[in-house]
């Protein structure tokens, strides 16, 4: 039993954890970097201690300082959130050594699932299906690879061992074209990473990214809370998640859920975790990896199950038995999450920094916003661009989509660019509405230009707006010139005035 939790994180997830603690009557300790003195988690926590300068490695990644602060403040538990130290088995072990409860799995489970080869081997032993392919061992020659390819089957992927970002990756449709593609893949990998090693993996076509939420206690009980559909990604960053997935039926859900539970049991798992699968069009599914922590998108599972996952994490870490058995987990309605990022969807999703000068949150029935920012707060370049999660619930998937559209339309954030327009265009797309998408949809078959037709409907209004704003500004600058004064307003009128008169 512990009574004071140190939250070793920042942003919306730190706020989320503080809320759960407060609702359980547990005291909270925030830690913060110099850039985060005014952050919401500092304002909401009972105690707050400075970690160090803004860069993560000097602040939120300083495991030693965090354990010192836990000791100093009398915190007897640590919640790591996601990212930063959440999947570092050495940090979990260091907490245990210091006599501080780590609200998460055992260090051995984190380590087992953290090593890709070990995780794969472990779950294969437990009878869990994985994507067929050569193991990621490197140093295989072209002859080795050409020999093994037919047993994996075509189409397959050549992937760079040092890989990432699609560099050195080639799709192979037949054995004949494979030698040439191997050459070019190795060449690209060599130039990109200085390492020409490649391996093979079956190409799962039209694959969806499906993940199951696991909860396990220290008494041997493991249950799943259903799946989340996470196929909408860009550059391997999730953008939109749904619970449940439009691609699963009850039978498939039961079968995948059982495999997910088995995977967790294979590493003697405790607390909340997520099993990621690839699911193909023929309902074949393959274990990808396990995330041994609370997931960004956990709220959509909370919305459809009514279970507060963070409170349950704390219960389990306190040694209690899970509050729910598998049969208690019922799914009600549909939930969608849009990740609101400070990035410009009209400029290649470039991150955007600056002061938030104004903000209007969507509220009302079925809408939840988890955020760590507020008007007056500065978005700095040091951390993740995700500034809020907009989550809606509806009785059906269609109602949830309509509600999400309504909420996106209401949401105003002024001061930084956000990807809200991306989500708006996505929610209007027929492919999304039909639930017909896979992991390549956003990058290959989606464009902000899809909205052209829609746009014409309001172009006259847009023209009036631009003209009225320009007119007002011209008048304002004229007045100011008359007064023979200048001021440095947001309006950059000086620049405009100079352009006009030079």
């Amino acid at each position, binding site marked *: 039993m512990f009574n004071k939790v140190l939250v070793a994180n920042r942003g919306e997830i730190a706020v989320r954890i503080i809320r759960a603690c407060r609702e359980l009557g547990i005291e909270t300790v925030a830690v913060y970097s110099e850039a985060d003195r005014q952050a919401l988690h500092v304002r909401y926590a009972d105690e707050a201690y400075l970690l160090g300068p803004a860069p993560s490695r000097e602040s939120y990644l300083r495991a030693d300082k965090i354990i010192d602060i836990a000791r100093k403040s009398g915190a007897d538990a640590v919640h790591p959130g996601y990212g930063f130290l959440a999947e570092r088995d050495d940090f979990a072990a260091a907490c245990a050594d210091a006599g501080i409860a780590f609200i998460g799995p055992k260090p051995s489970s984190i380590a087992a699932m953290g090593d890709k080869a070990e995780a794969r081997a472990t779950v294969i032993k437990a009878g869990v299906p994985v994507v067929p392919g050569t193991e990621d061992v490197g140093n295989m020659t072209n002859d080795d690879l050409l020999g093994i390819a037919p047993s994996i089957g075509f189409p397959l992927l050549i992937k760079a061992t040092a890989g990432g*970002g699609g560099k050195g990756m080639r799709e192979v449709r037949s054995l004949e074209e494979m030698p040439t593609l191997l050459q070019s893949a190795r060449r690209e990998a060599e130039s990109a990473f200085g390492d020409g090693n490649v391996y093979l993996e079956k190409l799962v076509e039209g694959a969806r990214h499906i993940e199951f939420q696991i909860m396990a206690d220290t008494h041997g009980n493991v249950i799943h809370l259903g799946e989340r559909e996470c196929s909408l990604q860009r*550059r391997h*960053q999730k953008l939109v998640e749904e619970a449940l997935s439009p691609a699963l039926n009850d039978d498939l859900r039961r079968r995948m859920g059982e495999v997910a539970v088995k995977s967790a049991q294979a590493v003697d798992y405790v607390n909340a975790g997520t099993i990621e699968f690839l699911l193909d069009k023929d309902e074949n599914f393959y274990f990808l990896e396990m995330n041994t922590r609370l997931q960004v998108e956990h709220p959509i599972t909370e919305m459809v199950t009514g279970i507060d996952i963070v409170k349950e994490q704390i219960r389990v870490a306190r040694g209690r038995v899970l509050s729910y058995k598998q049969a208690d987990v019922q799914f009600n309605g549909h939930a969608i999450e849009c990740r609101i990022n*400070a*990035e410009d969807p*009209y*400029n*290649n999703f*470039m*991150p*955007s*920094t600056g002061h938030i*000068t*104004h903000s209007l949150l969507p509220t009302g029935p079925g809408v939840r916003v988890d955020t760590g920012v507020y008007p007056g707060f500065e978005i700095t*370049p*040091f*951390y*993740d*661009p995700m500034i809020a999660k907009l989550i809606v619930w509806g009785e059906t998937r269609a109602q949830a989509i309509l509600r999400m559209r309504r909420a*996106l*339309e209401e949401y*105003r954030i*002024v001061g930084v660019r956000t990807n*809200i*327009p991306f989500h*708006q*265009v996505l929610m*209007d797309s027929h492919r999304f509405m039909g639930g017909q998408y896979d992991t390549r949809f956003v990058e290959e078959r989606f464009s*902000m230009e899809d*909205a052209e037709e*829609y*746009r014409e409907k*309001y*172009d*006259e*209004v*847009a*023209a*009036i*707006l*631009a*003209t*009225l*704003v*320009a*007119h007002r500004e*011209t008048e304002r600058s004229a007045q100011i010139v008359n007064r023979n004064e200048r001021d440095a307003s*947001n*309006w*950059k009128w000086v620049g*405009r005035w100079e352009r*006009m008169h030079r």
Partner: protein
Amino acid sequence: MKYITTIEGKQFLVEIIDDRHVSVDGKVYEVDFESVSGQPVYSLIVDGKSHESYVARGDDNWQVLLRGRLYPITVEDERERRLRAAAGGGVAESGEFILKAPMPGLVVAIPVSEGQEVKKGQVLLILESMKMQNELKAPRDGIVQRIKVKAGESVEQKQTLLNVM
């Protein structure tokens, strides 16, 4: 006051008649236009239809965000238009292009070198910010002149990175 307002090649002749009326291509509308909370957020009621928009200045245009769509718009009064017409019109696809850092960050890689010929859309520099790698691309064809930073260097927002002629 009359303006020529252009959305991606489509022109509108917009006249501001008085505080409550504008005409677009000769058609008169009743308008009620207010900024909200002193922000560049505008509420516009046109003949009863209620619209709300975020309007920001771009480098050489207005960016109107309306109902989840972005409209890049240029607004010129008659004098500006005459001047531009006299100058030959059109934005020249030449002259110096200076690549500045769009945000503070860390230079990860510079896949081009001084004197190299580059095509429009080619990656000039990779900048890491907010845990993301962002590719900064050439807006048009040209030759890289001077590279003022190197990989591994931290840069401030708006700092000049390199230029292309």
